């Protein structure tokens, strides 16, 4: 097997990410470890969403809802462990199982209904469902309503890994990313992935040759939801905080933008997209320029918007189009 330049670039990126905590130690600035950890979590969520959008053609606009479910499981567990002394609710494995099952179950319900619609209706209905969850979280006073919930102790992994150690947490996130990348790679190339991609390509023909795409799409929806729920579990532990804001529809929009930025239907696209998105946000919002008393950085989205339009117009596959071996036809 020959090593393509693309594989080389992707490997270099992963090696860099693996070495990052030590690089920042050496540079004496651990801020970037936290930033990159956040990026990698969003990359995991974007990867799962890309199964739906990039490979399956299902533009779900409510994917942040599942992140929220995973994050609130950690938040609520920590809350009851702290307030009521219910220790098992801090158990990371129990939290993890509930986060995965909970987000999968909610994806099952939302998917079962949404997947009966197409096009704009599908986009709107998935967004509506995620907003329902958002407003539910806003309404629950016990768990902080719109102020959110501070997490006083991170998930207890019973000594296997200490999530309070920033480096350990970073490597858990990094290894999770590797696992999800490999999972996606296998999934897309499997019989199941074939059906998902075929249903995006030509649904009428799929039905004519004997496939019922609905149940396969719903399964993809549940898998993507569970992975996003896992991302939420990690995010709550990283931030020590969860609020309804993680489920807001604009957060779902951010995930879609990451996929657009990175390139649809490519394995590494969402990772590049998440990196590009948060790096741009970080850079643009700290532009040290003041015009007429206004800090340009505060209005970073004014620059980001047009940039995004340019990318969509001229680089249909985002970052992926600039990597060697990019597919020219799509």
């Amino acid at each position, binding site marked *: 097997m020959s090593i393509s330049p693309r594989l080389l670039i992707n490997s270099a990126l992963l090696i860099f990410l693996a070495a990052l905590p030590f690089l920042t130690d050496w540079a004496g600035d651990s801020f970037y470890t936290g930033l990159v950890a956040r990026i990698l979590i969003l990359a995991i969520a974007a990867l799962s969403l890309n199964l739906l959008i990039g490979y399956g053609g299902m533009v779900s606009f409510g994917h942040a809802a599942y992140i929220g479910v995973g994050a609130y499981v950690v938040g609520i567990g920590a809350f009851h462990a702290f307030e009521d002394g219910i220790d098992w609710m801090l158990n990371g494995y129990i939290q993890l199982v509930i986060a995965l099952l909970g987000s999968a179950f909610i994806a099952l319900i939302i998917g079962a209904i949404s997947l009966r619609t197409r096009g704009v209706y599908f986009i709107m209905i998935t967004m509506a469902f995620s907003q329902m969850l958002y407003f539910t979280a806003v309404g629950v006073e016990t768990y902080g309503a719109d102020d959110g919930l501070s997490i006083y102790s991170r998930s207890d992994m019973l000594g296997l890994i200490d999530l309070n150690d920033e480096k350990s947490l970073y490597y858990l996130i990094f290894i999770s990313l590797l696992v999800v990348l490999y999972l996606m790679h296998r999934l897309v190339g*499997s*019989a199941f992935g074939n*059906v998902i991609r*075929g249903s995006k390509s030509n649904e009428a*023909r799929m*039905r*004519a040759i004997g*496939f019922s795409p609905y149940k396969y799409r719903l399964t993809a929806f549940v898998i993507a939801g569970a992975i996003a729920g896992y991302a939420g579990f990690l995010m709550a532990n990283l931030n020590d905080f969860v609020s309804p804001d993680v489920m807001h529809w604009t957060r779902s929009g951010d995930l879609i933008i990451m996929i657009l930025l990175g390139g649809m239907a490519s394995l590494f696209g969402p990772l590049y997209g998440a990196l590009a998105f948060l790096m741009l946000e970080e850079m643009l919002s700290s532009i040290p320029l003041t015009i007429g008393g206004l800090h340009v950085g505060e209005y970073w989205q004014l620059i980001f918007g047009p940039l995004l339009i340019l990318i969509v117009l001229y680089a249909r596959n985002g970052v992926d189009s600039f990597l060697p071996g990019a597919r020219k036809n799509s």
Partner: protein
Amino acid sequence: MTTRDLLVIKNLVKRYDGLLATDDLSLTVREGELHAIIGPNGAGKTTLIKQLTGEIPSDGGQVTFAGQNLKRLSEPERSHIGLARSFQITSLFQDFTVLENVCLAVQAHSGHSFRFWKKINDDTTLTEPALDILRQMGLEPRAYIATSSLSHGEQRQLEIAVALATKPKLLLLDEPMAGMSQEDSEKLVERLNELKQRYTILLIEHDMDAVFSLADRISVLVYGRAIATGTPDEIRNNEDVRQAYLGEEA
């Protein structure tokens, strides 16, 4: 050739806002025959195909296929009992390779696809039958190229190959020669001549030379009704058909 009836259409109806696209249509396709349907544009030929495959529901009548009433069967279910169609307007997986197009159809008939881990691309239980079908249709040398870079004629051949990959008992071909050059059409007639030895075929086609050289029986559709059915000779000499459709072509 047996004379068993494979497909029996009785009093089939399809209405579109008061327009009768299929008007009390009755028709029988015998096992082993190539049955052609001809008729002027708007006679309801493609509507009939869609009703047979279940893509659109019927408003009345009954269709029996291999002794089974089709009424409650969905489009994918009908594919699994042996009904396959090709499309008048090419309908392929354009971003897949030629081989992948056929493999996907083979996959549809090789059990469920809730298999999440094993690589599908080098699964010989799919690629071997798929390559075999591509060989039959003369597309084997093109197996590994992108479908979108096939010529129109080749795409029309692939259109049939995908239908064949579902192991059909009855092949519904909706204008397979549409848009083809004279040369490609002649080649396709040869291939259909080979296929008719092995498959029962319901052929819709505008190319009269092709129809009259291939068909065992021909039905003439006008305004959603079969006004005549018979051998090519009988149809050629049928007074109603001459008036309604063939004109001086006959």
